[in-house]
């Protein structure tokens, strides 16, 4: 990691952090907008998430009587951990300064830590809704994680690394070509992303119907700035998955480490485009399918796992071993 220390990379790292933080609400706004349009509604403006955050920030916090200190610090932790995770994913450039402080598994782990914190927070007040949310969340996670590992395995087999920068570089220089396994892995990752971000068909971010909600139930007791932070963390997570998909499966345009600033600008533009496309696609997807019952989700996620495993086995075959 000798060259990692150069100020350029540090700068790039910092701007990536600010960029993800800045863009996350926008992406959610975009998705909402698209959905609204497809529903023949005008819908809120793109910047609505920012406004919501601001409103929440300025509101006072209402705490339940028996809410403990855990309940109050968790939002900060959730937000910062998610932020770090998001910062580890190459968005517009690889080989950023801290990118080697963690690989894909670390990112998964960080998200797990955030989830752990959130689930605990959900249990803290001691209401039935918090319990519902937490227990369902961990159940989804327990199914999503093996799928992620399978996908990572698949990718690592191809790229020979779990280091995102390396993977991105490897994928970018094109000798990989199109592979069935990769396609399967992509589908799997999308499924996982939907589940992890509490999107339709697994969960409905816009509902407050006790039987259907998972993520919302968990954060039901939060208000004011705490809620704002948790929402922001959710936005970040969505962005993270989108950029993850981007940098693994569509790494074109990502600036290689050590390349000049102009490449970085180019990468940034291309990254913005990727976000836009993904946002639109996500909106369309969410419009075109319905939410499924909680106990159908396991099959859904199990599907993702199967896809990953299939991808790995196909790789064995394709390598003629």
């Amino acid at each position, binding site marked *: 990691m000798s060259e990692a220390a150069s100020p350029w990379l540090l700068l790039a790292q910092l701007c990536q952090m600010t960029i993800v933080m800045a863009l996350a609400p926008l992406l959610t706004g975009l998705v909402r907008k698209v959905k609204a349009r497809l529903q023949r509604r005008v819908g809120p403006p793109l910047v609505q998430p920012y406004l919501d955050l601001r409103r929440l920030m300025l509101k006072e916090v209402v*705490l339940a009587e028996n809410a403990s200190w855990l309940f109050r610090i968790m939002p900060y932790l959730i937000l910062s951990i998610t932020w*770090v995770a998001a910062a580890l994913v190459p968005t517009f450039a690889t080989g950023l300064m801290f990118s080697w402080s963690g690989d894909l*598994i670390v990112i998964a782990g960080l998200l797990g830590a955030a989830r752990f914190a959130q689930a605990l927070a959900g249990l803290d007040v001691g209401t039935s809704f918090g319990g519902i949310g937490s227990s369902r969340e961990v159940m989804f996670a327990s199914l999503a994680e093996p799928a992620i590992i399978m996908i990572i*395995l698949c990718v690592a087999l191809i790229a020979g690394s779990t280091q995102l920068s390396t993977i991105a570089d490897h994928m970018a220089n094109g000798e990989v070509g199109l592979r069935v396994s990769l396609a399967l892995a992509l589908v799997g990752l999308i499924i996982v992303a939907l589940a992890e971000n509490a999107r339709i068909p697994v969960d409905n971010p816009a509902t407050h119907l006790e039987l259907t909600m998972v993520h919302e139930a968990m954060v039901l007791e939060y208000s004011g700035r705490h809620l704002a932070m948790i929402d922001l963390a959710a936005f970040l997570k969505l962005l993270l998955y989108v950029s993850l998909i981007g940098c693994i499966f569509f790494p074109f345009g990502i600036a290689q480490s050590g390349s000049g600033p102009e490449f970085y600008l180019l990468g940034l533009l291309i990254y913005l485009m990727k976000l836009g496309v993904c946002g639109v696609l996500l909106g369309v997807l969410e419009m075109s399918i319905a939410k499924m019952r909680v106990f159908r989700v396991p099959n859904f996620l199990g599907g993702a796992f199967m896809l990953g495993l299939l991808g790995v086995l196909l790789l064995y075959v394709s390598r003629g071993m």
Partner: protein
Amino acid sequence: MIEPSAYCVAALLALAALSVSMARFGLVRALIYAASGLVCLALLGIGIASLGAGVSQMRLPLGLPWIGVNFRLDSLAAAFLVLIGLGGAGANLYAIGYGRHEPDPGRIVPFIPAFLASMTLVVLADDAFTFLFAWELMSLSSWALVMAHHREEGNARAAFVYLIMAVFSGLTLLLALGMLAGPSGGFTFAAIRAAHVPPATVAMVFVLATIGAGSKAGLVPLHVWLPLAHPAAPSHASALMSGVMTKVAIYGFIRIVFDLTGPPTWWSAAIILLLGGITAVMGVLHALMERDLKRLLAYSTVENIGIIFIGIGLAMAFQSNGFMAGAVLALTAALFHALNHTVFKSLLFFGAGAVLHGTGTRDMGRLGGLINRMKWTQFAMLAGCVAISALPPLNGFVSEWMTFQAILLRPEMPQWGLKIMIPVDGALLALTATLAAACFVRMHGITFLGRARGEAARTAHETDACSIAAMLIFAALCVLLGLLPGFVIDGLAPVTVSLLGGHMPTQLGDRWLSLVPVSASRSSYNGLLVFLFITASTLIVVFLVHRFASSAKRRSAAWDCGFPDPRPETQYTAESFEQPIRRVFGSLVFQTREVVDMPSPGDMRPARITRFAHDLVWEGLYLPLAAYVGSTADRMNVLQFLTIRRYLGFVFVALVLLLLGLALWQ
């Protein structure tokens, strides 16, 4: 370095002997605990010091005269000496305080040092006799500890099952080592290493060692004693049993499979991988369904043993295919996880003990909201839960991350068995990790968070200073090991060198102290940096929030979607929390069934939901065995009541048969 450790053993035994008579006096008890804690610290130091320093041996004119009692302190032994020292020191510190609450200390105090001494002996032993002697002694002394609360319901049974399983494992290892020693009785490990054993023997020894060490470590399906014995023993004893003794069992396995017999075969690796995966998942699923704190922890021990065995299995697989870099990584991961497990499992058992002492119950269904009354315990336990759930940046994550790296390093092996087994183990490992996270969210959330579910929790009180100190120290260790894993990995290098002839790239060389399994371009993890990163961003967030957001806050009733209910019964219980996962996995693994009894409107009786679960291993394997023995005993018992004429008949028949045999033989 061998003499000092021998002195430590002697000191521990002396303490045990002393405490037999002195255990009545509280002060002496505390002193004895303190003394054995210090000895354990010495052991810890010796272990660390002799990790790098080569092999030192020692022979005492005891035991069988023609072989004597041989001790040998090589790097592997040193590594496990560190575990014993660490766990022992912590347990003793904890016991200084916790021991005061014990009703009948005379049944506990003497056996703690004896237990520690015997475990040390197992690790130091260099001949089959000494090894098994110490092994059985370990079982016996820990049995006494399990028997300490002999009047409580079910403890006698627990102790019975435990000792039977322990003796079973001892006898199995006896067979294994007897096989290796050969008819001439070359019992010293040196002789065994020197002897050239045929592959068939190696295979047999492997199977026996797996059964023997596995049943002591808690490998499914030989794990049944853990959830019985650990709750029965006093908490510091269960911490030792679960945190240290199971590791000693793993030491035995490694010693036999990697050191005493030749390089493993791929199928043995596949078997270990399979068992490890099953053990990990079964253990954590059991833990998820438990509501007794200590039983839960016992099952989670089973899970972690499974993870360690996955690492060992990977090492065997790679070694059998001559892929040493992978083998080294996997074995290091396994050893590292063993260390981590010692740390956080001891911590968690301490915490469970504190809860038990503070509330008088281990039943999560009657706890809740302890965060307000047992602040320190809760804080330490939180660290433990995060660590055991393998979440960054704590230590549990590091070892599991390394295991993942080993899996990802080269999942494809020439043999199809491994080709399938390794990725599947990867998935099982991931499943285990997340289920463990779920399990400990549940455990921590139900026990410490929410509202008190019963009088026990409402009137809970914080435990004593020594216990808290022990817990906090171990919590700090969880963090340290997570942030600076390089030290541990470099420390383990001599072990892998001696067993596999190679070691991982030196970690401390990297000036960012980041953890690099093979090469930086392949994968790397820097716990310290991630931690700093998180703190930095947290600080930024805090700053921003407090700069721009309103700091107003108000306390009021919980919102709860508009129907707040003051009664704590309305909270999510442990059962309701586990329900979704039970629905998904339980129906298969435990054949769980839920029976809902919903009274018709106007009917006043409460609605109730009952859950039925089966422990298939117990009901499918152990109960039939017991039933068979019982019925045979019943049938044979008739022989007690025959008439003299019948007994004479036996003599007559025996005589005639022998004569017939003779006639035919001639």
